[in-house]
């Protein structure tokens, strides 16, 4: 193995490879292209994944939303088709009976799809979604507080009539230069003090509608709009290490018991499982990654077959040279080692060039993207991690070895006599 580090064997390799530059470069291009495609595909998949997951932008993905529907089966003398509502007491009951829940946030809502004008400020009016919420909701559905603050527990406990408004609300109700914090807006005839503004990110849902929301404390909402102890729906997040998909049937059981609903009634509680959706998308990207590897490695393989092919030709062409070398005292192993090293060297150098080229392209793309507002794009930060590069390098070394194996074996099969026979 000392050959590997001797300056002479490297000089030999460079000499042999540079004796036909054009062919060497053309051969190397196959592998360069293969590794280039592999890296670019992986990076593109990654970029798309980053872009899509940005849509979930910090949203607690281990969450579900749950609302009450109508009982679809009669139970304990109660008829089917019965309406019921979640109550505020359900919240502590769920927390108590189900382990592994991080947040259980009850919510109420005014307005909604095509709602009528419900908010007034001076001469301005607008139709907005008004939510009654607990402070935790900002962990579950993140938003940027651009000024002031969000709801806190003092607001909840003292039932303060305060509101946080979206940038969409602000642009309708306020003149651009007007001070927002400390002003009052009238929601369904009740005055609320604006204490903060927010802006939401993400690209799922309607980006314009998302900015047209107003958040008020849950307790003040109930009191101001006569909700009593009714809870419209709940946003529930499980702790890390628990899956909301697995916990949700337990939660439903608590609800069903408390509201006298048939345990087999699957339609009484409506839900949207964010985690399940998220897993689907994650699965999609696993598949995409697999496709990238599959295609990339196949393209790489064709490059490697190219190298193997060329090495066969090289051996054929150099039959005489190999004969001479053996007459001069070259051992079969030294011939084999030279062919193998040539092939590995060619593979690695062209592979590295491919990686460098791909990196340059990625850098360029990233540079372009960095000049744009990527918050609503489906494609951000295409990249591969260093581990992938190492995997690619390992593939290269192994494949270089494989590419050289058959030609090297051919080379030592050459009998010196036959090689030297002059025609």
């Amino acid at each position, binding site marked *: 193995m000392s050959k590997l580090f001797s300056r002479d064997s490297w000089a030999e390799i460079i*000499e042999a490879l540079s004796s036909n530059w054009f062919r060497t470069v053309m051969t190397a291009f196959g592998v360069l292209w293969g590794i280039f495609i592999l890296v670019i595909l992986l990076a593109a998949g990654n970029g798309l994944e980053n872009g899509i997951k940005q849509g979930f932008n910090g949203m607690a993905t281990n969450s579900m939303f749950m609302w009450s529907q109508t009982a679809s089966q009669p139970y304990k003398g109660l008829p089917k088709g019965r309406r019921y509502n979640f109550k505020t007491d359900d919240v502590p009951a769920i927390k108590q009976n189900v382990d592994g829940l991080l947040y259980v946030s009850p919510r109420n809502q005014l307005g909604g799809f095509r709602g009528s004008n419900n908010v007034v400020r001076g001469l301005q009016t607008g139709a907005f979604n008004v939510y009654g919420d607990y402070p935790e909701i900002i962990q579950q559905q993140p938003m940027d507080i651009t000024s002031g603050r969000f709801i806190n527990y003092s607001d909840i406990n003292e039932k303060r009539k305060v509101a946080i408004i979206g940038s969409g609300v602000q642009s309708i109700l306020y003149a651009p230069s007007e001070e927002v914090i400390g002003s009052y807006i009238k929601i369904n005839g009740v005055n609320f003090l604006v204490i903060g503004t927010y802006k939401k990110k993400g690209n799922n849902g309607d980006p314009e509608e998302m900015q047209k929301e107003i958040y008020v404390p849950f307790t003040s909402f109930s009191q101001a709009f006569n909700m009593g102890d009714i809870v419209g729906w709940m946003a529930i997040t499980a702790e890390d290490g628990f899956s909301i998909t697995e916990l949700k049937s337990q939660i439903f059981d608590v609800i069903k018991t408390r509201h006298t609903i048939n345990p087999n009634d699957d339609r009484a509680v409506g839900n949207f499982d964010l985690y399940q959706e998220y897993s689907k998308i994650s699965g999609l990207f696993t598949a995409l990654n697999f496709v990238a590897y599959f295609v990339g490695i196949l393209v790489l393989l064709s490059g490697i077959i190219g190298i193997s092919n060329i090495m066969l030709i090289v051996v054929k062409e150099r039959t005489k040279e190999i004969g001479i070398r053996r*007459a*001069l*005292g070259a*051992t079969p192993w030294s011939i084999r080692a030279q062919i193998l090293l040539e092939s590995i060297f060619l593979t690695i150098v062209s592979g590295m060039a491919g990686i460098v080229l791909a990196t340059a392209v990625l850098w360029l793309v990233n540079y372009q993207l960095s000049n744009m507002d990527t918050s609503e794009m489906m494609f951000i930060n295409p990249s591969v991690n260093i581990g992938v590069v190492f995997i690619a390098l390992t593939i290269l070394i192994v494949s270089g070895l494989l590419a050289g194996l058959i030609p090297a074996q051919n080379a030592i099969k050459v009998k010196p*006599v036959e090689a030297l026979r002059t025609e």
Partner: protein
Amino acid sequence: MIEIKNLHKSYHMGKNSLHVLKGINFTVAEGEMVSIMGSSGSGKSTLLNILGILDEADEGSYTLDGTLIKNLNEKVAARYRNKFLGFIFQSFNLINYKSALDNVSMPLYYQGVKRNIRTEKAMHYLEKVGLADWASHLPSELSGGQKQRVAIARALASDPKVLLADEPTGALDTKTSYEVMELIQGINDEGKTILIVTHEDDIAHMTKRIVNLKDGLIIDDSIVNQVRAKTESYV
């Protein structure tokens, strides 16, 4: 130096077998200069290949410098070729992408000699064949005679016991042939054992002994008066 007893060699091509060497007995002492002559098909190249450990005999024994050459694996054969033998070919067989100096230093490379010593030695032999000024030239930039002289320097580089030359002047004109022969005679004068395969009479007479081969047998083996190449050449 070389001792051959009852050497047989056949080639098999499909169902046909061709008996090329039919029992050769032959010894060469140290310092001799022998030419092997014969028409084509007489088996002279086969004999040279066996002597050069490039091929193996079917029967009989071959002893080179006291070492029995038999059933060698390729690795040992390579070492013996490197240690005992220097080859000179009709078509020179230089490696065409290597300079004259690198060509000459190749046998030393396979001996594992260090780079600077190798270059020094190779340069010494290039000087000996009068091509020191051409050390960095590629074979394609040299004339036929110069190429053959580089090949001779290469054959000498590993300081072998025996020089084997296969038609060393076959591709050269008369004048250049004589120059090369003069060089080879000079090397022999220094005590190197040399075997030359040729079919040219004048070249054969520049050696000290002529072995005539016909149909795989030695038909004549005689000492001749050596003709010095210089006398015939240009003055």
